[in-house]
């Protein structure tokens, strides 16, 4: 499973949705995530990819779409490598 596929599975699980969001779709505007679901999702991403997301990076915009999350996780993983 690719990184993006794993992220989609997390979003589906946290949002309790059977439908996968489009990669560019806003997860807030489309109703997949609210503030608390977003927080849960961040925790699941940290566990799934064994990363620690710094508090300074905890802004909704950074996690507003599958593509944004994917590129952020890739950047963070690279910087930790």
């Amino acid at each position, binding site marked *: 499973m690719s990184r993006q596929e794993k992220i989609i599975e997390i979003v589906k699980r946290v949002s309790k949705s059977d439908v996968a969001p489009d990669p560019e779709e806003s997860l807030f505007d489309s109703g997949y995530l*609210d503030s*608390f679901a977003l*927080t849960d999702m961040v925790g699941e991403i940290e566990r799934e990819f064994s990363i620690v997301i710094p508090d*300074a990076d*905890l*802004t909704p915009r950074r996690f507003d779409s599958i593509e944004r999350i994917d590129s952020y996780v890739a950047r963070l993983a690279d910087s930790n490598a």
Partner: protein
Amino acid sequence: MAVIVAFGRYLPDRVLRSDDLAVRLGVDSAWITEVSGIQERRVAGDDETVVEMGVRAGRDCLARVDANPGLVLVSSGTPGRRFPGPAAEIAHKLGFAGIPAIDLPVASAGSLFGVVLGAQLASAYGPVLVIASERMSEVAMAEPLDKNMAILFGDGAGACLIHTDAPGLEIVDSVLHSDGSWAGDLQLGLTGPLHMNGPTVIMQAARKLPGAISELLKRNSMLPGAVAVFVMHQANRNLIDRAARVLDVPAARFYANIAKYGNTSSASMLIAASEWREANAPASGDQVCMAAFGAGFHWGAVLLTARA
């Protein structure tokens, strides 16, 4: 050794139920309960100013203990005027004109900061009366109504008296943090509406609140399960439950009265502590943890141990 020897509170009589507010906002009352856990809140009348509510909470606190303060600390993010803040007037109306009275315009975390400062200052000034008083409904329900804001807040005041070498809740240790890089995400300007970037505030609070509690407990070689009760700033029921989940503690161990009063900003933690203490007599040695997070951002936690 600094000890909280008494708590006090004042809540306005007027109740605004979520059912009634929902009609006004054109939303489903079940939505209000789902996103916040709030079923009703208190709304202050014209004569229930921040000063008046603070005085009444202070009186309620002092009526429970045989001591007078040597210092008054007052937290309010809704003082009603730029200066002077309410501290000196509250001290005067309580009959303590002449003793130092200091304002803490720290908003939601203000009472926690007040307790920590009071613990440090009690040995120098004598008993410290910490009061937090807020009229949040005024700013949250200002027109044009923002439903996400209007549902959350209520009015009220809380208080505690910190003494030295007395029975009560000994303030064992504390952690305080501030980070002004988030100042714009939750603010009330000199004019204009309350601004809250809800998702950012919740993401940060959901991380920083349990983080501060963990930091404090780790420093004292304790696990969260060893704490008898957690009394947090009553910001949102979902946030309280989430903190319990992160700390792996049953949610029932987090005292919560947000369903009755909503978020009363800095007053909420002391109102909750006052109600909890009135209904419970902790055994000697019981550990209590208070925590708060709010605008600034300011956040932290305090560890207390019951002493007979």
